[in-house]
């Protein structure tokens, strides 16, 4: 299997959340993302910072991760972004 790039990993993480009815706990997301916990933390924080996902804590203290509008837009535009990068060799 080819090595995933940064954008591929971001897409995969966002897809996992979307496929999980847009709500997932951090541990299953880490497991399904198939990356080390160190890298997961980096990507997770970056996605939060960029506003592609948000995390909410319920009354019991459980943390849930959701996609934002921007996150959904990223998934919609992902193919276009990749094709653009490929076309201009960026």
């Amino acid at each position, binding site marked *: 299997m080819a090595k995933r790039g940064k*954008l591929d990993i971001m897409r995969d993480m966002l897809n996992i959340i979307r496929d999980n009815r847009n709500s997932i706990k951090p541990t299953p997301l880490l497991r399904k993302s198939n990356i080390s916990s160190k890298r997961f933390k980096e990507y997770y924080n970056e996605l939060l910072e960029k506003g592609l996902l948000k995390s909410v804590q319920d009354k019991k203290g459980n943390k849930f991760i959701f996609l934002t509008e921007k996150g959904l837009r990223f998934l919609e535009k992902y193919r*276009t*972004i990749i094709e*653009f*990068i490929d076309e*201009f*060799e960026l």
Partner: protein
Amino acid sequence: MRPPIEYFFPPEIGAELIYSFIIIICSLMIYYATKEMYELSSYKGIKYFRQAFLFFAIAFFSRYFIKFLLMFFNVGEILRFSMMRIGWISTFIFLYSISMAVFYLLYSVMWKKWNHSQLRIYLFNLFAFIIAMMGLLGGVITSLLLIAALLLFASLILFIAYKNSKNSRKGKKLYMIYLLLFVFCILNIFDILIPTFLQVYQLAIYLASSLIFMIILYKVLKNTGN
């Protein structure tokens, strides 16, 4: 009797104005068409690509638009500016911006191979500043040689990348467009520092440069779905 239109609008200024207008519009359209993609992905290659075209827009705005505004609206007289000083400032901004545009465009295709480093961006700024200063303070020949050498060096790097391009036909076509763009940048700089350099070919150079920008814009719009 009304003075002829040429009195207000000499033909060479008209050609320069249309030319610069096309380049500015194309560059800004490229910059804004890729805005959302960059905001979503924060991808460095897209960032450098966008910045290259922003600098192209600034370069051509400073070179031709300021000249046009000063001449057409007689701003120099109104604000009591020294036309020579404004000429120096606009030449400095043009040389700095066009050098940065070339560096950024080159970096947009090379950043992965060169390992991204902020130091490189500082170096680009330093080189662009030196080029702009040389254009103003150095002798015309010295500055031309320096600028041409740097741009040719950039073109050479691009040519090597073009030769090694894995992306077959598509990539090679792109590198060819960029190489032509760099050549036209050199010709544009020659045109500014030695106004008599191009003479009869000036219009052809303007047309060819505009065409290259329009081709890039077309490719961008096609690939961004705009």
